[in-house]
């Protein structure tokens, strides 16, 4: 995607036109882990798409017609249908588009992945809390909680005896949880996975996945974003462009 087209749209910007036939549009933000889920699925399934990045600190008025809550990611198709909530967008793409199915076909296996996915639910909130701490206040309590959550995931991998959370190859659950693990290095929290060896092996395997590596964000870019974001800079979302 060209640098110019990757620049986020902010208040006062013109609303984009309808989505051309044969494409699906994602309203996104380059550093948002929730939007990253949908981008991973779009890439993994080879779905033709266009990306419109939104300045989340200075949202265009028209964006609220796409999602009344004003959150990314949002999918818009050429029929003008809008889908919000990252996990729902991922499931929609898996159902609406042919090719490799990311959720398993077997109902019980799918239910198991969804039950295991519930075990991840505290991680985004914890990472956000650590990220929001100013002046490097003592995060040891939060880090400990994070380690506990990682242990739950370690248990899943131990029981399954497979590299990935869905089995021997990458599937939906791996992509749904991956974006937060991508943050660990940038936030200097890699040591939180030190006591969970299977989780570490999973991370290494994920880095090798062609979809993950194609969408890999540079650690320095994350750190640049974090720095500007903590200063409440409107430029944060376009860092590096």
């Amino acid at each position, binding site marked *: 995607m060209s640098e110019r087209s990757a620049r986020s749209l902010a208040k006062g910007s013109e609303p984009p036109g309808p989505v051309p036939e044969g494409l699906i549009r994602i309203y996104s933000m380059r550093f948002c882990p929730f939007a990253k889920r949908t981008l991973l699925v779009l890439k993994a399934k080879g779905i033709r798409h266009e990306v419109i990045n939104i300045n989340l600190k200075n949202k265009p008025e028209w964006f609220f017609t796409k999602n009344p809550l004003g959150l990314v990611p949002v999918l818009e*198709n050429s029929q003008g*249908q809008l*889908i*919000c*909530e990252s996990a*729902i*967008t991922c*499931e*929609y793409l898996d*159902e*609406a588009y042919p090719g490799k199915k990311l959720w398993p076909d077997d*109902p*019980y296996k*799918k*239910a198991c992945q*969804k*039950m295991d996915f*519930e075990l991840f639910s505290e991680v985004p909130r914890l990472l956000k809390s650590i990220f929001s701490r100013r002046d490097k206040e003592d995060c040891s309590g939060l880090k400990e909680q994070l380690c506990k959550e990682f242990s739950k995931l370690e248990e899943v991998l131990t029981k399954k005896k497979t590299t990935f959370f869905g089995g021997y190859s990458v599937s939906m659950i791996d992509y749904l949880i991956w974006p937060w693990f991508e943050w660990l290095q940038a936030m200097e929290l890699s040591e939180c996975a030190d006591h969970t060896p299977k989780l570490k092996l999973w991370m290494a395997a994920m880095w090798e996945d062609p979809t993950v590596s194609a969408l890999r964000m540079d650690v320095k870019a994350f750190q640049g974003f974090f720095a500007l974001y903590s200063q409440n800079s409107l430029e944060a979302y376009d860092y590096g462009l």
Partner: protein
Amino acid sequence: MSGNATKTLGKGCAPPGRVPEGTMRLYSMRFCPYSHRTRLVLQAKGIKCQVVNINLRSKPEWFYTKHPFGQIPVLENSKCQLIYESVIICEYLDDVYPEKKLFPCDPYERARQKMLLELFCKILCYQKTSFFGGNCISMIDYLLWPWFERLDVYGVADCVDHTPTLKLWMAAMKQDPAVCALLIDRSTFLGFLNLYFQNSPDAFDYGLTC
């Protein structure tokens, strides 16, 4: 569905045996709204299911082998596979018994239903204080109240029995002077409904003396 109107199994009770081929078993509790969801789907799809009610204050030890934290509902099939989380169970049942699909087939319509559910869950989650806006009654409480008042009138207020915060909220709301002043009289409302469903034009004046 059999067994819903049965006594709960508690501490010291023997575990039930294997689930027979061709049926499902649901570990449940009669007043839990999450279990209720699952029972609705089982009923609507005509699935043969045995209900085992669990005493949630005194759980049988073996129940923790069905769910790590002893929560209900849990579905067990004849292959000893266990599924929990009410929405995951409902989706699983829709997948396994495709003859009468409850989720729409169109991916966008499916997504829309899931987005609506998310919004509803947000309502339940937003309720962390006595009232939806904080510790005092405010706009949002008045905006939501009419539907909950009708729950009482329809006689289905038991469905909040197992969501204690929502139940407490309803009780607190009934103490509010504005809510009190306008509380619908149950028999008047039922009288209205009765006439309304008969398409009677007098429905709207039911209960008025002058």
